[in-house]
């Protein structure tokens, strides 16, 4: 049941009894999946935001002088999910990440990350930073110091009960335990990146921000990092991922946001596909059968929007593939078509991404 929140003006909002019960339930049983409530629609922060491990932002903006870098950003990322922020260079992804991580003060809007409101007071930020892990665009390691000491410093800053044990676990996780005593300057680019990931997850934060986590890695190391991100999700951590790698985003992310100064589109890959393109079905014909000759037989059928013949196949825009596909197939066979392949056309994320950007 979706609770009803009364959007009253002023600081006080009425909350129904069912909501209070729901809030209590959510705060007690974190792992339990509860139907998502669109808080943006109601302009109301999450009831259990103090115990949540997700990411929520409303009207987040950043201006540097006259330059508007991030514009009215609303985000609602479920705990334990992976959200990929896609966008061209200079789109404001890193600035967004820095705002959510409490490193840059937003010009407007508010955010709650890992149950902590992002407020720019040193004391509150210190608390927030214990609950987040950040992988920056560049690894940012102290080159003259050993891999282990780099992590030890951060383990101590996080006041971990057993810094040595935490560092060992993190280094083993990213496969650098055997290189722990080497100075970072001697490590390869990929190793430094893995070390930076180890630093980000050293204190096992509930929310992890990853800015281009596989950009400097070879395919094998990138696969390891992807596996690690899967593992983080499996452990119930929320991951916000900034990436240019569309394949990576498609494979890892539960939700994807296409971003250029503002959020142009957001949803699962499937939702984005449906929003960007009408469903299409494809019929491939055996040569020398001419697809164009069969086009009139399907054009008039109900549910058909558009028919294009090219390269030995017919691509037909439809309203609902499940309803229309059997009828189309029957009509074409009755028309004497010799079919090699019948199926729904699946648009790549790249096509969707470019379409969303071009539409702006």
């Amino acid at each position, binding site marked *: 049941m979706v609770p009803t929140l009364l959007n009253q003006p002023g600081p006080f909002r009425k909350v129904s009894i069912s909501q209070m019960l729901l809030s209590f339930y959510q705060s007690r049983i974190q792992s339990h999946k509860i139907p998502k409530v669109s808080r943006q629609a109601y302009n109301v922060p999450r009831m259990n935001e103090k115990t949540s491990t997700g990411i929520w932002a409303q009207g987040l903006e950043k201006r540097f002088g006259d330059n508007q870098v991030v514009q009215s950003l609303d985000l609602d990322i479920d705990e334990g999910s992976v959200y990929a922020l896609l966008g061209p260079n200079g789109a404001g992804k890193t600035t967004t990440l820095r705002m959510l991580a409490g490193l840059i003060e937003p010009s407007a809007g508010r955010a709650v990350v890992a149950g902590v409101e992002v407020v720019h007071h040193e*004391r509150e930020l210190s608390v927030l930073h214990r609950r987040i892990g950040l992988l920056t665009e560049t690894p940012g390691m102290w080159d003259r110091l050993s891999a282990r000491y780099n992590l030890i410093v951060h383990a101590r800053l996080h006041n971990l009960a057993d810094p040595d044990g935490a560092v060992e676990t993190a280094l083993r996780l990213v496969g650098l335990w055997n290189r722990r005593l080497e*100075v970072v300057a001697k490590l390869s680019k990929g190793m430094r990146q893995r070390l930076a990931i180890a630093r980000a997850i050293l204190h096992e934060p509930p929310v992890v921000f990853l800015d281009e986590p596989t950009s400097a890695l070879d395919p094998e190391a990138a696969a390891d990092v992807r596996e690690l991100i899967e593992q983080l999700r499996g452990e119930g951590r929320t991951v916000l991922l900034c990436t240019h790698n569309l394949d990576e985003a498609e494979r890892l992310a539960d939700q994807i946001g296409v971003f250029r100064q503002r959020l142009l589109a957001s949803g699962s890959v499937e939702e984005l596909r449906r929003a960007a393109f009408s469903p299409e079905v494809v019929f491939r014909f055996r040569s020398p059968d001419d697809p164009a000759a069969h086009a009139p037989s399907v054009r008039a059928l109900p549910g058909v929007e558009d028919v294009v013949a090219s390269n030995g196949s017919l691509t037909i825009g439809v309203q609902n593939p499940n309803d229309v596909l059997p009828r189309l197939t029957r009509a074409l066979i009755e028309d004497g078509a010799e079919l090699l392949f019948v199926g729904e056309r699946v648009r790549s994320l790249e096509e969707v991404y470019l379409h969303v950007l071009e539409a702006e």
Partner: protein
Amino acid sequence: MYLKQSSGRWSWYRVGVVCRKEWSEIYHNRRVLLSTVLLPLILVVIGTSGQWGVSLMSSADFVNEPPPSLGVGRFEGLDVREQFQASLALQFLTLFLLIPLLIPISTATYSVVGEKRDRTLEPLLASPLRTEELLVGKAVASLTPGLLVAVTAYVVYAGLSSLVIDNARVFSYVLGPIPLLVMGVLAPLLGLLGVGLALLISSRSTDPRAAEQITSVLVLPLMGVFVAQVLGLVQIAPWSVVVSAVVLAVVDALLFVVATHVFKRGEILTRWR
């Protein structure tokens, strides 16, 4: 992972972590390490040689009208040679102040610009470390090696000078109330001034050498005091040390206030480039 309880309050423990990290970096940075050792070594050698050279002379070796740099006439009850030794001791005391000023400037600029160049600040700022803790950690880490080296070098210089200075009153200008006041009070305050300015200037610079050179302009007033001493225009006395200390303490406090206003988290990330 078990995290100890923390309310995000100021933590000296985190300041200590930053300090130790900074010292490790200084230890592994040959250029900074060399600059830490070279200047004190030169001053010890020149200072001791100067006192030794004067000790070999007799009062009769001095000309009838000695130049003001010899300090003759300023120390009653001492013969000409002893007056020259006492004057030399006070002049070297001023030069030894270069150590707590220059070494912290060098270490602080490399510490800040190095972080900017290697982009290591962002992960540090994303940790529970507070900005003030970071700055205090860096300041203390930059200040202490310079002070330690200055005191050590001065003790070595005083020890060697004791072998060539016979008169206890003359030696009190090497190791007595004035030198103790200068090295104990003036040196740390000068060091703080150097660190504060180095941190401020480094925050606007991407080249450590440029930042170091700009900050090193601070040496000029000190050299001015040295030249004035040589010309016989000023003489280090307890009252002048106390006045200088009060002025420096006020300037250091103002610098701290400016630094805490300038070093905001967002500023550091967006402007420290």
